[in-house]
C-alpha cells in the first residue's frame, strides 16, 4: 500500500481489489429464501407453542417424538439460524468499523448460531429416537 499515495495512481486503480467480496448476492438470496421458509414454520410454531405451553413433560416429549414434529422443529432451527446468522452479521458489518472487533463479532455470531443449531437438533433427535424418557 506504500504506493497508494502516489499522485500518478488513479482513484480507480486504488479502489481495485478493495471492493466487494462477491458474496453479496448469495448472502441476499439465502436471507430471502430462509425468510420465505420461516413464514409457514413460524405459523406452525405458534400453534405448537399454544399447544405445548401448559403441557407436562410426557405430553411434550411424546409430541416431539412424532416424526413430523421432529422434522419441522429441526427445519425451524435451520431456517431461523441461517436467517439470523445472515441478518445479525449484516448489522455488525453496518455498525462496527474496526477490523478486529468486527471479525470477532462476525465469527462469534457464527459460532453462537452453529452451537444453538447443534444443541437444538441433537436434543430433538435424541427425543425422537429414544422416545419419551
Amino acid at each position, binding site marked *: 500500500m506504500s504506493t497508494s*499515495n502516489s499522485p500518478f495512481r488513479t*482513484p480507480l486503480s*486504488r*479502489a481495485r481489489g478493495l471492493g466487494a467480496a462477491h458474496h453479496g448476492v448469495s448472502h441476499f438470496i439465502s436471507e*430471502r429464501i430462509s*425468510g*420465505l421458509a*420461516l*413464514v409457514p414454520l*413460524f*405459523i406452525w*410454531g*405458534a400453534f405448537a*407453542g*399454544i*399447544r*405445548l*405451553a*401448559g*403441557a407436562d*413433560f*410426557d405430553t*411434550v*416429549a411424546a409430541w*416431539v417424538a412424532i416424526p413430523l414434529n421432529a422434522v419441522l*422443529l429441526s427445519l*425451524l*432451527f435451520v431456517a*431461523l*439460524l441461517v436467517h*439470523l446468522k445472515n*441478518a*445479525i452479521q449484516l*448489522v455488525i458489518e453496518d455498525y462496527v468499523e474496526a477490523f478486529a472487533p468486527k471479525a470477532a463479532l462476525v465469527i462469534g455470531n457464527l459460532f*453462537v448460531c452453529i452451537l*444453538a*443449531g447443534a*444443541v*437444538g437438533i*441433537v*436434543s*430433538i433427535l*435424541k*427425543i425422537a429416537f429414544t422416545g419419551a*424418557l
Partner: protein
Amino acid sequence: MTETSRGLPERPLSPHLQVWRWHITMACSILHRASLFALYVGVLLLAGWALSLASGPDHYACYTGLLGSLIGKLLLFGITVAVFYNVGYIVRQSFWDLGKGFAPKTADMTGLAVIAFAIVAAAVTWIIAAATGAI
C-alpha cells in the same frame, strides 16, 4: 475520504439520525432490526428448551418454571410480537423483491399493516393460549 476525492471539494456528510422526522417506513426498518435481536434471544431460548427436554423431567420442569415466571412471560410475549412482525415483514419484503410496493403511500400503508398485524396476531395467540389453559 478526502484523499480519494482529491481535486474535488469536500463532500457534505449525510444528515444525522436526529434531524430526521420519524416516518413509518423508517420505524419499520428499525423495528425489523430490533425484532431480529428478539428472535436471536428466542432461538437461544428454544435451543435451551430442547436441551432441557432431552435432559429429563426435572430439568424440563425447572426450565419451564423459569419461562413461566412473570419476566419469562413478558420476554416470550415480546418474542411472539417479533415472530409475527417478521412474518409480515418477510411478506412485505417479498413484494419489494418483485418490484412492487415502493410508492411512498403504499410503503407507509404496508408498514402500518405489518406493525398492526404483529400486535394483533401476538395478542390473539396469547388469548387463545390463555383460553385453552396453556398459560
